[in-house]
Each structure stands twice: as structure tokens, then as C-alpha cells.
């Protein structure tokens, strides 16, 4: 006699160790097998898009810190680039270089967290995370030197950056750049050659190339599926066209490839830093921009390659001091669209690591 079984619904989150914030997955399970997943977001919704309509262009910069709080600098950068595009402001050379340096440092810091927590989701009891944190801590110290903050930097300004770097910054950054490649190699060797990591992540959570494009996945998730698309190369902003770097591309589109792409991107970021430091010119760090910026009537869609994917700002100006419409294109929310397709038929444990491999940040998803 066959035993009668029936699927049951499990609400994973909003309080759950692996949801990277307040995120809920409504999972239908047949024993251990995932039949259906429905992401439920909005627990961290602060209405930033609405709030921003009532504040000036400069006052909105701190809001962008609170989107993807693990990569605040890149959020700042995306926003100020969009405003500069809207208002047609030229940025001094030194500021451009400083922005690139900050953005690439931020990319390393964000990927370190992504890789660390991916391993944590695999069950490696905090150890990889703490090692990644050690390196991230060095970056946070550098950011603190520059702007006095460790998480929400508010460093970029429309027309440049808020402060010049202090004297001790460049030597410390050089030390970091010198030691980082060796450390990445070491960690990669430990992690990517671990039998259990390979058995758990290879072939799991596959996102095929056509689907990745169709859901407009971006960042490492898109590249792991084999699409060679990086906005820094495809649609260069700031001064990225002057730097030499590779775009790592995965082949299988599984969790392991997403991990691998992130590790490779950290190496490329270090390469960009190595090139940017010696080039850093002297001069002003911020252009003369009026206190109350009034961009001409119009609209702009500015996008950059944030660590987690394509971060876009769609701004509509009506020539007042505040944006008429302030829209954020959150990369991880859109990457999440693929979650269901990636995990159907896999086990609960695979659901967790696939979700972890997308590398979400709830501050950005919920806004």
C-alpha cells in the first residue's frame, strides 16, 4: 500500500538565519524536495523613492547609502553619475580616479561578504565568513580614513567627492593591494578544492543563459551563466575605459560558477586598483556645483555595474530642487526573479545556497 503524502507549506523567514535580512520565502515542500517558491519582500520597505521626491538632489545621497548597505560607495556613485548626466556637470580628474578606487574597493568588500556568506549557507559554521571579514575590515578602515564612516559613507557628491584622501590612505591601500591577491589565492584554494563545497554547489541551481537574459539578470549572476556583459566594458561610465581588466565568465550557470565569478572579479578589481593608484592626479576633488542644484527639465537613466549587478537610477527633473521621480533599479530584486526556476526540484538545502549565491541585500530589494 502506498503511503499517502501531501506537500506542505513552509514560511522561511522573515526571521531565518539564512535569509540575509528580513526576507520571506513561501516554500511548498514535498518532504525535502522544493515544489514551489514564492519570494515575499517588503519587510524593509522605507519608501525611499517617495521620500526622495521631497528632498534636494544632494540630500538624497545619504538615502542611496541605505539601499545596498554592503556596497554604499557604488550606490553613491550610481546616483551622482545619474545626476551629473542629468545636469551636465563635469567632474575633476582626481575625483574620477578617487571614485574608481572607492568603487573597486567596495566591490571587493561586497564580494568578500557574498563569498563568505555563501560558504556559511553551505554550513561552514562562520569560519570562512570571519576570514572574509578580516579582509573586509581592512577596507572598512580605509573607508573610515576617507570619510569617517564604516558602513554608510555618503562620500560621493554631485561633481566629485566630499573630501580629499588623507596622507596615510595611499600607503595603506598599497599595502592592501599588495597582499590581497595572495590572500584570494589562499582562500580560493581552500574553498574551491573542498570536496564538499564542490559536491554541494556544482550543477546546483542552474540558470541557463537564455533565461538569465530574459529575466534581465545582471552582475555575477548573469556572467556565471555565460553572458559576457559588464557595464564597465559594455557601456563604460566614469573613466573605466582607461583601465585594463578581464570579464570573468562562467559556463554552467550553477552556484559554483557564481562563486567562482565573484572570486575572479575580486582579482580583477585588485588589478584595476593597481592601475588606478599610480595614475592618481593632483587637483580639485569636487567641481563647483550650486548648493541647490536645478537640473534642466528632462529625464535620465544612469546605470553602473554595482557588485551585485546593474544598479540604475531613473531620474526625472522638472527644473526644481528636488527630483520629480526618483526610481532605483534594484539589481538583486530582479535577479531574484530567477530563484523559482533555479530551485524547483532541488532540496531545501539547495534552495538556501542558491538564494545565497544570488547575493541579495534586502535594503536594496525593499528600498
Amino acid at each position, binding site marked *: 500500500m502506498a503511503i499517502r503524502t501531501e506537500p506542505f507549506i513552509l514560511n522561511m523567514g522573515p526571521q*531565518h538565519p539564512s535569509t540575509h535580512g528580513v526576507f520571506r520565502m513561501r516554500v511548498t515542500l514535498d518532504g525535502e524536495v522544493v515544489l514551489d517558491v514564492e519570494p515575499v519582500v517588503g519587510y524593509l520597505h522605507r519608501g525611499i523613492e517617495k521620500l526622495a521626491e521631497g528632498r534636494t538632489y544632494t540630500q538624497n545621497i545619504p538615502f542611496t547609502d541605505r539601499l545596498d548597505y554592503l556596497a554604499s560607495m557604488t550606490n553613491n556613485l550610481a546616483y551622482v553619475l545619474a545626476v551629473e548626466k542629468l545636469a551636465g556637470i563635469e567632474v575633476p580628474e582626481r575625483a574620477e580616479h578617487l571614485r574608481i578606487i572607492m568603487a573597486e574597493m567596495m566591490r571587493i568588500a561586497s564580494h568578500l561578504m557574498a563569498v563568505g556568506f555563501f560558504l556559511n549557507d553551505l554550513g*561552514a559554521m562562520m569560519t570562512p565568513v570571519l*576570514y572574509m571579514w578580516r579582509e573586509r575590515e581592512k577596507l572598512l578602515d580605509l573607508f573610515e580614513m576617507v570619510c569617517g564612516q564604516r558602513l554608510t559613507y555618503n562620500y560621493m557628491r554631485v561633481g566629485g567627492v566630499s573630501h580629499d584622501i588623507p596622507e596615510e590612505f595611499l600607503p595603506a591601500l598599497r599595502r592592501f593591494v599588495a597582499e590581497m591577491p595572495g590572500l584570494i589565492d589562499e582562500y580560493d584554494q581552500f574553498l574551491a578544492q573542498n570536496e564538499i563545497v564542490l559536491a554541494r554547489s556544482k550543477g546546483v541551481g542552474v540558470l541557463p543563459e537564455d533565461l538569465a537574459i530574459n529575466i534581465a539578470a545582471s552582475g555575477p549572476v548573469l556572467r556565471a551563466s555565460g553572458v559576457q556583459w559588464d557595464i564597465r566594458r559594455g557601456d563604460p561610465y566614469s573613466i573605466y575605459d582607461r583601465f585594463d581588466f578581464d570579464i570573468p565568465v562562467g559556463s554552467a550557470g550553477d552556484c559554483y560558477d557564481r562563486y567562482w565569478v565573484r572570486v575572479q572579479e575580486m582579482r580583477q578589481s585588485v588589478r584595476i586598483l593597481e592601475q588606478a593608484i599610480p595614475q592618481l592626479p593632483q587637483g580639485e576633488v569636487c567641481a563647483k556645483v550650486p548648493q541647490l542644484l536645478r537640473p534642466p527639465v528632462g529625464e535620465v537613466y544612469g546605470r553602473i555595474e554595482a557588485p551585485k549587478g546593474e544598479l540604475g537610477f531613473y531620474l526625472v527633473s522638472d527644473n526644481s530642487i528636488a527630483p520629480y521621480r526618483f526610481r532605483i533599479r534594484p539589481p538583486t530584486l530582479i535577479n531574484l526573479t530567477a530563484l523559482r526556476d533555479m530551485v524547483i526540484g532541488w532540496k531545501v538545502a539547495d534552495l538556501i545556497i542558491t538564494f545565497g549565491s544570488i547575493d541579495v541585500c534586502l535594503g536594496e530589494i525593499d528600498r
Partner: protein
Amino acid sequence: MTLLEQFQLWLGSIWPEWAAYITPAIIGVVVVLGFVLTTVIIFIYLERRLLGRFQIRTGPNRLGPEGIFQPIATALKVLLKEDIVPAKADKAVHWLAPVIVFAPILLIFAVVPFGKGAIFTDLNVGIVYVVAISSLSAVGIYMAGWASSNKYALIAALRAVAQMVSYELPVILSILGVVLMVGSLSMNQIVESQSIPFILLQPLGFVIFFLGTVAEMNRCPFDLLEADSEIVAGYHTEYSGMKFALFYLGEYGHAVAYSAIIATLFLGGWQGPLLPPIIWFLIKIVAVFCFIVWMRATLPRLRVDQLMAFAWKCLLPLAVINLFIIAAEVLWLPESMPWIMVVLNFAFAGVLILLWSKLFTLGGGRVEV
């Protein structure tokens, strides 16, 4: 004759018979309990400090010199917490489960020899008793998961049953190898016959037994029952206060108990030169425990189907082959030359493990739904 029996005989000459029977038993229980609970508390501290070192941090270091009072503070904190029982829980079972998980662990120590004659009771079926008693805690875990009326706990409970049943087999088969060589089931006999520790005589058996027991005590990389990144805290998600403390103690008690069993079966128990037996025994327990902590700090977790595959497709066949090899050697090899056996068995272990690592795949994966 154990120390307790000698004490009982001596007492019998001056006290009435019933008192002479009960008093040593109570003393023995108190001593063993005291030993177990202190060791567990020390091990909790040890694990946290060790994990700290593995994870480039210090670990608890505030309370008392080097933080040695931290486990006491933790225990107090846990005990003082409110005892929450879910409204839809099966109250009686929910209440009973932590006891059933914790009690067998104390019972195991009844047959663990701490030194020559220093054993609570030298059962002639000692090792069978250990196997029988230790599998009881699976029932407790299942009860906890079932009674909590929580889906995470239920998943953990079902995983627990599958895991415990699967890993019991290779563990018992590898114990049989030891028993074959000793010719007795008594724990004392097993220790005394280890002039060469069995880890050298049966390296493959040791590896299988070690991995099997790590799985049975739910330690990384087999800690699927409390896989915190997947099912929150597994079967004890809905437990708090004293009941949670019992699970917590049970987890570490399990680790201490199995470290003791591994030390007894494969590392020569209390035997060792120069130092007193109890010190040797403790050194061996701590060494095994530290190794387990090292694994916990280093390895990620297997998936549930891979865990099963590992038990049934890797450990079980190896355990059977190991048993055959040991049986053949006991039958045909001259007993006077154990070192031949050491060399032979290391060769066998190396070849077999290499072979299996090439042939065996964890497999599994997607199910069509």
C-alpha cells in the same frame, strides 16, 4: 574486579547487606555524574575557545581568567530563561523529549573504563550496551521534532531517524572488527588487550567508526539535524530554558561520550606510559574532541541525500570489507606478529579509501516535479 565491587565487599563485612549494596552504587553514580557534567562544561568552554582560534578571534575571554567562568554564566542564563511551550505542541512528549535525549548519554558512562578497575560496572556485553543505549537518543530527537509542532523541527526529526538508522550500521560493523580481535564484548577487556592501539591495527575500522560516530552525534559535516542555515535550529527550534539546556548538554555529552568510546575502542583507553591512567584517558578524550571541533570549524555541510549516499554507498561496503579482512587475519595470521597486521591493514586501508574516493560519487540532485 572493579574498584566499586571491592568497596562493596569491604563494606559488606561491616554494614548490613542492603546498605553495602546501595551505598557504593550511589557513590559511583555521583562520581560518574560529577565527572560527566564537569567534563561537559569544560568541553563547552574548550570548544568555544578552540572555535575562536580557528576563526581568528579570541572566543569568550571576559568572565574570570581567560573566560573560564563563561560556561557557568551561559548555563545560568539558559536556566533562567522562560520555558516556552508552543500552544499546539504535544505537551507531554515535548516535555519528555529532552530527558530521553539526555539520559542515555549518562547511561553510556556506566561502562566506560576510566582506569584499571575504575569502571562503574564491567558488563560482559559492554559495547553492545553502548550501541543499544546510544541509539535511544534518536527516539528523543524524533519526539522533540514531532512534538514541537514546528515544520523545521519536523524536517529535522525525519532527517534524524534516517541519519541515525543509516549510520548505526557501519558503526556496529566497525565495532565488530574490534570485538573479533579482542574476543570479548567487555569494555575492560577491550582496553586491556590493546598492547598496540587498535587505531594502528585497524585504521580503516577507525576511520569508519569515527565518521559514523560524528554523524551520530550530529557534528559537522553531518550536522543536518540542526543545520542552522537551513532549518533554523532543527529539532530544538521550539525549546527554551531548562529543556534547551538539556539538549545543549546532551549535544556535548554525546560528544564527550563518543570521544570516550573512540578512545576506549581504538586509542588504547586508559593505557599509556608514565602518567596515571585517568590522565591518559582524559588526554585521549580531549584529543578526539579537539579533532571533532577542528572538523566543525573547517567543513561545510553535506546535503541530506549525499549524507545517505555516503553512509550506504561508501561507509557500509567499506565496513563489511573491513570486517572480512579482520576476520581473515584473526583466523590465519600468527598472533605473535601483530606488526605484520599493522602494515597489512594500513596498506588495505590506503588502497580501499583511494579506490572508493575514485569510484564513489555523492550523486543525487534534482528531482523532476
